[in-house]
């Protein structure tokens, strides 16, 4: 800030200021000769970054090249047959499971966050217990959710492998994510909003729904979209609750079994080397979907966020 001010007034030659803090290459080399370990660390830092981003590009490019060379319109045919191996039904199943689990986890997560931020004091013992519970839920691996869903929905309720059971399991999984992002969004709404609303005679409920939630909406929506990304990318919890089948016909209802896109990929891989090309194509669609979803979440979270 200070430097910009000086720049505008044009009183000081800015280059002289910069050169105080900037070492010449020769000075830097001399410093490194005195501390060779620092130079080694610099090399390691650059090497590690190259490995990280090399790995990302390798995975993306390899998958895209393999996938796009195996793309065909057949893969997106409306009806799945053992010949065209269309991923369309799996895509629809993914949307169905995502819609249900987001609706459930969205309501529970947002409401719980409202309670945590707007009503409860953070020293409250109940709040502490809820926080521990949310952290625990967030840490449980998907396979454990899968086993729980299988014990609970598949066996105890006697539903068998169903889209609904899968969606309910998924909603448990993404609840903590929605709650945490909503909490952050609510906390970012300045207190002056609340005070202004109360001063105008609005009740607490009215303040929450008319003032606070709209202000926090971009953050909340981006949290829900992140949850969508989790559902789209989840495999194991769904194999154990919604079932895995290589023949994802359109389910006639929520109480039918059905593979999502990830589970369909899992089933294709399970067939050994028969469907390598199709599997790469599904992998590409999955990567594109998750990139799109996460990008959207970030865009909404950043660009639509109002500065208060």
């Amino acid at each position, binding site marked *: 800030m200070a430097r910009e001010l000086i720049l505008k007034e044009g009183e000081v030659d800015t280059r002289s200021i910069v050169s105080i803090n900037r070492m010449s290459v020769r000075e830097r080399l001399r410093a490194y000769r005195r501390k060779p370990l620092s130079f080694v660390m610099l090399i390691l830092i650059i090497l590690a970054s190259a*490995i990280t981003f090399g790995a990302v590009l390798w995975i993306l490019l*390899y998958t895209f090249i393999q996938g796009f060379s195996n793309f065909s319109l057949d893969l997106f045919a409306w009806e799945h047959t053992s010949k065209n191996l269309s991923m369309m039904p799996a895509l629809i199943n993914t949307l169905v499971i995502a819609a249900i689990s987001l609706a459930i986890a969205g309501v*529970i997560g947002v409401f*719980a966050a409202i309670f945590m931020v707007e009503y409860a004091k953070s020293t409250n013992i109940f709040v502490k217990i809820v926080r521990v519970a949310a952290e625990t839920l967030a840490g449980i691996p998907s396979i*454990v959710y899968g086993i729980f869903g299988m014990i609970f929905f598949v066996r105890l309720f006697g539903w068998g492998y169903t889209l609904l059971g899968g969606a309910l399991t998924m909603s448990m999984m993404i609840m903590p994510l929605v709650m945490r992002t909503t909490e952050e969004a609510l906390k970012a709404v300045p207190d002056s909003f609340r005070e202004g609303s109360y001063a105008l005679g609005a009740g607490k409920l009215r303040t929450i729904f008319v003032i606070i939630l709209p202000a926090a909406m971009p953050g909340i929506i981006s949290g829900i979209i992140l949850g969508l990304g989790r559902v789209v990318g989840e495999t194991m919890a769904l194999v154990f609750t919604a079932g895995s089948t290589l023949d994802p016909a359109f389910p006639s209802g929520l109480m039918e079994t059905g593979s999502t896109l990830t589970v369909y990929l899992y089933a294709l891989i399970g067939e050994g080397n028969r469907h390598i090309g199709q599997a790469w194509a599904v992998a590409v669609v999955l990567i594109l979907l998750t990139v799109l979803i996460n990008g959207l979440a970030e865009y909404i979270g950043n660009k639509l966020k109002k500065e208060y």
Partner: protein
Amino acid sequence: MQTNTAVSAEKESNPVPKTKTLAAVKEIGMMAVFAAAALIFVAAVLMICIYLFARAIPGISEIGWVNFLFGADWALGMDLFGIGTLVVGTCYSTAGALIVGVPVGLLTATFMAFYCPKWLYKILKPLTNILAGIPSIVYGYFGLKVIVPIVRNAFGGAGFNLITASLVLGVMILPTVISITENSLRAVPKSYYEGSIALGATKERAIFRTVFPAAGSGVMTAIILGLGRAIGETAAITLLCGNVAHFPTSLTDPFVTLASGISSGMGYASGLRLEALIGCAAVLFIFVLIITVLVMLLKRKAK
């Protein structure tokens, strides 16, 4: 609930006319709804605990606790339920993932926080986010089709071994380690770094001797969350571990983890075999609980 008293106190100081009692009921009713939503989190954890352990404990008792926890033979088809090899496999593959992922992740985070020019950051940051978003089954398939053949050619054997799994898992935990480490490095006051530079330290020395120690608990959190992701990873490891339940004696040995043991034992899921799988899930759950507690303690320390 203490919040109830807060609300009623508000009412007393601010007597409500009779026409507004409906509004007051609505206020309290909705607060109950919000509280109930928060309660669902607690209920969900309790239900998972209860149903998992209520099924696991009788099953394990029938198998025998020592037999189950330390037994070296795991073959569901032959009713052999010793998860010793699975636990060891889980520890090895998690350690392998950390050995690969943590140094690379910490150094990359350093690059992102201190070296990366702005234009490059705008490209690299989204790339790490993409890495975080790729579904684990896609990592698994990439590992299966690309890494397994490479490892097979380089080290011999089938290619389904600890090396392959560690490499893939290591890359999978990278985004977690990078983003949390980067955030905690950036949270350290700039004056620490500047003071160190002013005293004549090289940039690297300033970073690793002053900024890193100051960001210590954040870096630990990053590592432990990475560990948490590696320990429960299933879809990718099931495809890469080779699925042979024995104590791996070399890096090129196949192995089984708790999670991959559950997923590949799925076909046997009935009777005592199902109880054994639930037992595996319960053990994994306990591992993750320990990790969660560690993370919470670290966060408290950071405050």
